[in-house]
C-alpha cells in the first residue's frame, strides 16, 4: 500500500494513553504550566506520569526494556502533551541521545543506559554548542586528550539545557584539532562523542538566564581536566561528525511535533475566547473575519506542518538514509516553527490586552514558539541545507 494517512489503532492508543494520563491530573494543569513557563522547571509528577505510560521506551528495542515501536509514538505523545500546554524538552533530548546510543554505542553502554531511559529514570542532555561553535560544529574547541583508559577533557560549552535536571550529557569534543584535520584534507574529521556524568569532577556549571526552552534551564559548562572513561565514547574516535548529523534528525522531528502540538493548544484557547468575547453588541469577536481568518490560516498551516512532521518520522522509522530523513526533518522543523509563532501571535491578538495576562496563559508560548525558529537549528541553516542538498545549489559559505 502506498499512502495511508489514518492513525493506526496503536497510534490512537498512544494518544489516548497520554490524554487519559493528563485528564487524571487535570486539577494540576495550571500549576504545572506555571512551573514550566514561569519557573523553568519540569514538574516531577508530570514526568513521572508521562514515564509511567512507558513512552520513553517506545522507541527502544524490547531487549532494553522498550516496546520497539519507532519514533512515531513518542512524536504523537509529545504532540498530545504539547496540545495541553506542556512541552517536554527532556523527552526530546533524552530520546535523541538514546537513539544515538542505540545506533552507535557499545553493547555495554547500551545495557548500562537504555533500560533506565525506557523507564524514565534516566534523562540525558546534549552538549554541542560553544561560544564559537553553534551553527558550525566543526569549530568545536573542547578537547579530549586520551591518557590510558580515559580521556582528559578541557573546554567550555554554552546554552546547554538541563545540566541540573539530567544525569548525563552526550558531549561533543574534538580528539584531533581542526588544523590537523584540515591538514589531513578532511575538515569533518576529529569530532568525538562521549557520555559524561553531569556531576563529574572537573565539570563546573553556571546558570544562564535564558528564555524560550521552558521547563528546563540553560547552563554554561566548563571542563577542567575532566576524566571520561574510554568506554563512554559513542561511535568511533574522530568519527563523530556523521553520528551528529544522523542523530540530530530525531531532535528536529520531535521539536516539530512539540511546535504543532502547541498550535493545538493556542488555537483551542483562541477559539474558546473568540466564541465568548463580545465587544460591540451581542456578537462574539469570533464572528469577525479579522479574528477568524488568521486562526483559520493557522489551522491550515498547522496541518501542513503536521504532515511534514509525520512524513519525517515515517522516513526515520523506515530507516531511510539520514540525508533523506534530514530533508523532511528540516522541512518539518522549519514549517512547524513558523506556524507556532503565527499561532502565538494570533492567540495574543485574539485576546487583546488579556493576551498579555498570565491568567490567559497564551503569552507563555510567545518565547517558546520563537525559540523553535532558532534551536535546535536555525532557520538559516535549514535554508542552507535545503538549498545545498535538496536543490543542489552551490554552497554559499
Amino acid at each position, binding site marked *: 500500500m502506498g499512502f495511508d494517512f489514518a492513525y493506526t489503532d496503536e497510534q*490512537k492508543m498512544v494518544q489516548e494513553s497520554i490524554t487519559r494520563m493528563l485528564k487524571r491530573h487535570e486539577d494540576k494543569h495550571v500549576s504545572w504550566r506555571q512551573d514550566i513557563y514561569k519557573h523553568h522547571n519540569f514538574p516531577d509528577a508530570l514526568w513521572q506520569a508521562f514515564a509511567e505510560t512507558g513512552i520513553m521506551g517506545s522507541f527502544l528495542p524490547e531487549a532494553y526494556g522498550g516496546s520497539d515501536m519507532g519514533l512515531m509514538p513518542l512524536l504523537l505523545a509529545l504532540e498530545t502533551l504539547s496540545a495541553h500546554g506542556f512541552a517536554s524538552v527532556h523527552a526530546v533530548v533524552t530520546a535523541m541521545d538514546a537513539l544515538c546510543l542505540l545506533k552507535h554505542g557499545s553493547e555495554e553502554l547500551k545495557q548500562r543506559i537504555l533500560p533506565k531511559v525506557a523507564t524514565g529514570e534516566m534523562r540525558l542532555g546534549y552538549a554541542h554548542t560553544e561560544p564559537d561553535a553553534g551553527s558550525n560544529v566543526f569549530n568545536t574547541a573542547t578537547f579530549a586528550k586520551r591518557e590510558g583508559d580515559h580521556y582528559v577533557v578541557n573546554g567550555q560549552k554554552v546554552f546547554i539545557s538541563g545540566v541540573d535536571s539530567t544525569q548525563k550529557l552526550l558531549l561533543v569534543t574534538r580528539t584531533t584539532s581542526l588544523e590537523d584535520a584540515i591538514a589531513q584534507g578532511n575538515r569533518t574529521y576529529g569530532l568525538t562523542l562521549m557520555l559524561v556524568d553531569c556531576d563529574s569532577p572537573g565539570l563546573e556549571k553556571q546558570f544562564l538566564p535564558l528564555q524560550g526552552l521552558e521547563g528546563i534551564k540553560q547552563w554554561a559548562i566548563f571542563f577542567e581536566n575532566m576524566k571520561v572513561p574510554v568506554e563512554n565514547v559513542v561511535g568511533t574516535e574522530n568519527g563523530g561528525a556523521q553520528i551528529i548529523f544522523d542523530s540530530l534528525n530525531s531532535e528536529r522531528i520531535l521539536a516539530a511535533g512539540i511546535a504543532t502540538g502547541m498550535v493545538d493548544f493556542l488555537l483551542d484557547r483562541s477559539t474558546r475566547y473568540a466564541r465568548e468575547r463580545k465587544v460591540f453588541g451581542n456578537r462574539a469577536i469570533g464572528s469577525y473575519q479579522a479574528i477568524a481568518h488568521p486562526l483559520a490560516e493557522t489551522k491550515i498551516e498547522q496541518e501542513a506542518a503536521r504532515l511534514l512532521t509525520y512524513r519525517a518520522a515515517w522516513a526515520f522509522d523506515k530507516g531511510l538514509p539520514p540525508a533523506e530523513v534530514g530533508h523532511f526533518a528540516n522541512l518539518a522543523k522549519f514549517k512547524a516553527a513558523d506556524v507556532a509563532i503565527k499561532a502565538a501571535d494570533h492567540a495574543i491578538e485574539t485576546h487583546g490586552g488579556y493576551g498579555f495576562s498570565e491568567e490567559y496563559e497564551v503569552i507563555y508560548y510567545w518565547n517558546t514558539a520563537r525559540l523553535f525558529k532558532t534551536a535546535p537549528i536555525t532557520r538559516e541553516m535549514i535554508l542552507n541545507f535545503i538549498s545545498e542538498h535538496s536543490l543542489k545549489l552551490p554552497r554559499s559559505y
Partner: protein
Amino acid sequence: MDIIVCIKQVPDTTTVIQIDPSGKDIVRDGITYIVSPYDEFAIEEALKLKEAGDGTVTVLTVGPESAKEALRTGLAMGADEAIHVVYEGAPSQLDSLTTAKLIAKALEGKKYDLVFCGRQAIDDDALQIGSLVAEFLNVPQISLVIKLEINGEQIKASRTIEGGTQVVESRLPALITAQKGLNEPRYPSMKGILKARKKEITELKAAELGVDLTPRVVLEELRLPPARPAGKIVGSVAELVKALHEEIKVI
C-alpha cells in the same frame, strides 16, 4: 480465576453529538470512540484479580468492525484474550435483549468464574446488559459494585445505595457490574500496546450464532435536548428571590 469482561465502544464523552438525517442514529463521521468508562473499571478490576492470583482475562464486545479498537485497548491494558461478536446491522436495530443473548451465546462452552460488565454504557444508558446476561448465564448478579473481595469461592461486595453502602455476599460464578469508585483504571502502557499487537481477536459473526436478531425494542427517534434558554443576571438578592418566587415559582 478466569474472568470475562463485557465492554462497549462508545463516543468520547467530549464529542459534540449530532443526529443524522434518519433520526435514528448519531452522525458517526469524525467521532472518536472510547471504551465506556464504567467498562474500564470492570477491566481494571478483572486485571487486578488476575494479577493477585492467576487465570485469564477475556474482553468481549458486540459491535461493528470498528469496535475492535475497544478490544485492542482492553488487550493493551493487559487482557489476555478478546472475543468480537461482529454485528453488522444498524445500531438502532440492536436492542439490549439481543445483545445479551449474543454475549451469552458467545460464552457458551467457555470457562469462567466471574463476568464483569460496566454498570451501564454511557451512550444509550439502557442499564440492562448486566442483568440480562446474568439471567442467560444463570449466575447471580451483584450490581453497582464499588469494592470487591474474593476468597476462594466466596464473594464479598460493597454496593452503592441511596445515601450509603450495602455489603453483600455471594459465590462464584457470578456477574458483577462496576460502579465508579471501584478502582482507578490503568491506561494502556507502551509495552501493553506492543503486546496487544501480537494477540489474536476471536471473531464470531452475530448473524451466525443462531440468535434471532429481530429487535424487541426498536429505536424510533433520537432527539437532542432542547437548547437551554439564555440565563438572566439579577442585580440583588431581593431581585433573585422575587424571580424565583414569581417567574420560576420554585419558592
